[in-house]
């Protein structure tokens, strides 16, 4: 009889070393020129830094990280400043295209070397609106920033939230004052090339009461051949009483990027949030996306698509929190997977005690285009009230052979047929996307992915 072999999963010392970020306190923005950073922000960065040091690196023993393994992250090789080939400094032209006809409500492009391109109409600034980048906001809107930033996503929430708190200097801030209803969308792009670069971003969208905004935010970088790079980001959203926000997000990081974000939207009484996102980039992504419905009658809708290929690994962790009665949430995530790629969707509807008459829905649909691709779909309900309606559905399927044959019989090639089927599969998400320009962006991303 063979002797049983005991296998222990112990992390090798070399892995731990490789996994260790090389940054020190001295690297914190404003550490040396303290006067350039408002005191509250300096303090806040230190708080993030200290938390980052105490919070251990997530492992697959942590429930939220069970399916996303970080042992391959070569954090020790990362740098905060990267040399850039000139041709990469400028973002590709298609990222800069207007989203609605020829006109923007306003556009901010963040590119390396800290140039920022602003195009914001004076008219709106007169109304008290803020639409600016994070560096400018530190100087010009410090007080406002100190009152809003960090309320919705706290640095305590995780290692990467803490790290982004400490280091994020790039970012976009939007404030829509009470009663202001913007008809044209605002658009921001963060273009961040760089080999082995660690990048950190922060997005803060604050829509005050009885206001309205459509905001499109894109993050992108070119694929780098050498090494890994990194992004940690924080997205905070407040939707005030009776307000409406449509928030569209497009993630197109290069294939070298390990991407970690904490994103949360808080929706107050009778506010509505329409959150749409597309995720096609990065080597590995772990994104926490949450909607907190904190006021009676609040509605949160979340629609997303992800499309993976190669050996990408995208993990979206969603939470629909019903903290108040008569709140509605509706989530639809659709994913298609090629090659050996992998996706994880883990979704939870939480209904707090007393949040009666809640209506919560979540659905995740996956289409695997290769026998080697894998989609994990894990819906969840946690309901602490008794008069609610919560439903969910999760599916993983392959391309239907009969659909394929039908298209082939019309002369359409296999590749083109799969493209049509995938586009059709994503169409319910596209239908939720406002503005043709944005839809076009999403469709182009899908087309490029199929190749």
């Amino acid at each position: 009889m063979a002797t049983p072999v005991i296998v222990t999963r112990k992390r090798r010392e070399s892995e731990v070393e490789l996994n260790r970020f090389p940054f020190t306190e001295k690297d914190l923005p404003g550490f040396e020129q303290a006067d350039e950073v408002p005191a509250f922000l300096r303090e806040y960065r230190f708080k993030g830094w200290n938390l980052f040091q105490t919070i251990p690196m997530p492992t697959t023993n942590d429930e939220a990280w069970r399916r996303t393994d970080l042992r391959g992250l070569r954090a020790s090789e990362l740098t905060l400043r990267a040399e850039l080939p000139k041709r990469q400094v400028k973002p590709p032209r298609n990222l800069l295209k207007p989203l609605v006809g020829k006109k923007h409500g306003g556009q901010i492009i963040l590119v390396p070397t800290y140039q920022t391109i602003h195009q914001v109409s004076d008219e709106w600034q007169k109304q008290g609106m803020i639409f600016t980048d994070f560096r400018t906001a530190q100087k010009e809107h410090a007080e406002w920033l100190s009152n809003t930033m960090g309320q919705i996503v706290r640095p305590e929430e995780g290692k990467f939230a803490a790290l982004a708190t400490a280091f994020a200097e790039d970012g976009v801030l939007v404030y829509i004052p009470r009663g202001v209803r913007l008809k044209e969308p605002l658009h921001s792009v963060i273009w961040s090339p760089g080999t082995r670069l660690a990048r950190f971003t922060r997005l803060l969208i604050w829509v005050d009461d009885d206001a309205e905004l459509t905001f499109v935010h894109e993050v992108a970088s070119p694929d780098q051949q050498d090494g890994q790079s990194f992004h940690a980001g924080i997205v905070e959203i407040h939707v005030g009483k009776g307000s409406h926000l449509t928030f569209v997000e497009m993630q197109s990081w290069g294939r070298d990027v390990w991407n970690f974000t904490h994103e949360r939207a808080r929706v107050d009484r009778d506010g509505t949030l329409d959150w749409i996102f597309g995720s096609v980039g990065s080597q590995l992504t772990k994104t926490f996306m949450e909607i907190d419905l904190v006021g009676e009658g609040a509605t949160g809708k979340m629609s997303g698509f992800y499309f993976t290929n190669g050996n990408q690994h995208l993990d979206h962790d969603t939470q629909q929190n019903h903290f108040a009665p008569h709140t509605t949430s509706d989530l639809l995530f659709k994913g298609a997977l090629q090659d050996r790629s992998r996706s994880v969707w883990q979704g939870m509807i939480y209904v707090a005690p007393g949040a009666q008459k809640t209506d919560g829905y979540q659905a995740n649909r996956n289409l695997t285009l290769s026998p080697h691709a894998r989609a994990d779909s894990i819906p969840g309900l946690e309901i602490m009230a008794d008069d609610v309606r919560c439903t969910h559905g999760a599916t993983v399927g392959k391309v239907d052979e009969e659909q394929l044959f039908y298209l082939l019989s019309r002369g359409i090639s296999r590749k083109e047929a799969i493209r049509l089927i995938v586009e059709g599969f994503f169409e319910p998400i596209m239908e939720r996307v406002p503005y043709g320009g944005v839809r076009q962006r999403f469709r182009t991303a899908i087309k490029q992915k199929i190749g």
Partner: protein
Amino acid sequence: MSELQIVDLHVNVNGKEILKGVNLTVRQGEVHALMGPNGTGKSTLAYTLMGHPNYEVTQGEVWFKGQNILELEADQRAHLGLFLAFQYPVAIPGVSVANFLRAAINARRKAENPEDKGIPIPEFRKQLKKVMDTLRMDHSFAGRYLNDGFSGGEKKRAEVLQMAMLKPEIAIMDETDSGLDIDALRIVAEGVNTLRGPDLGVLVITHYQRILNYIKPDIVHIMLDGRIVESGGPDLALHLEEHGYDWLKNKVEVIA
């Protein structure tokens, strides 16, 4: 003048022989009806001709434009000018009729000329509207998702619409009449009749004589147990209507 020539075709489905030696030639300009009771292999023939992967050809050849098309993929057969109107058209959610048709037309154009840039959109729209008018279809039909939530009649009309737009040389219509009420049947048949002409050969597969009142065949074939056991003029269909298939049973036994 192209012709589709089926020679001694034997086909297995899940290891069981369904077609046991079919011989049939359909020329451009002719309308053939293939009749027979359920389960005799009519639809197997249709799917096999179009190249469905579940149908395993064990013997025989199918010649079209100088090629044994059994060696070709379904899309290549379509490029040659072969078309199958499905008995059960498949829904493609999220893909509009118009987008799908344009993709199909462009695929065929590209097959003929790799340099082709695709049909110009205005030209495509004009064509599509014209055909929809002939088939008495509302123009909004073009924006609907292909076969998704279509009624039985709409599905069959959509098949004829595709046929009209793709202009095949040989079309196989697999039980296009099934599930249609008499009005829908008439519209579909009229559609097919408008496409009739010297450039189109049609093989109408059915087990009812009914559709043949509207689409008049030149030649009628009867299939039993995986073989064509009788061929004749239009009268053969009427004879079947009156006498059923029983009188042909001994023919099967003789052959078997």
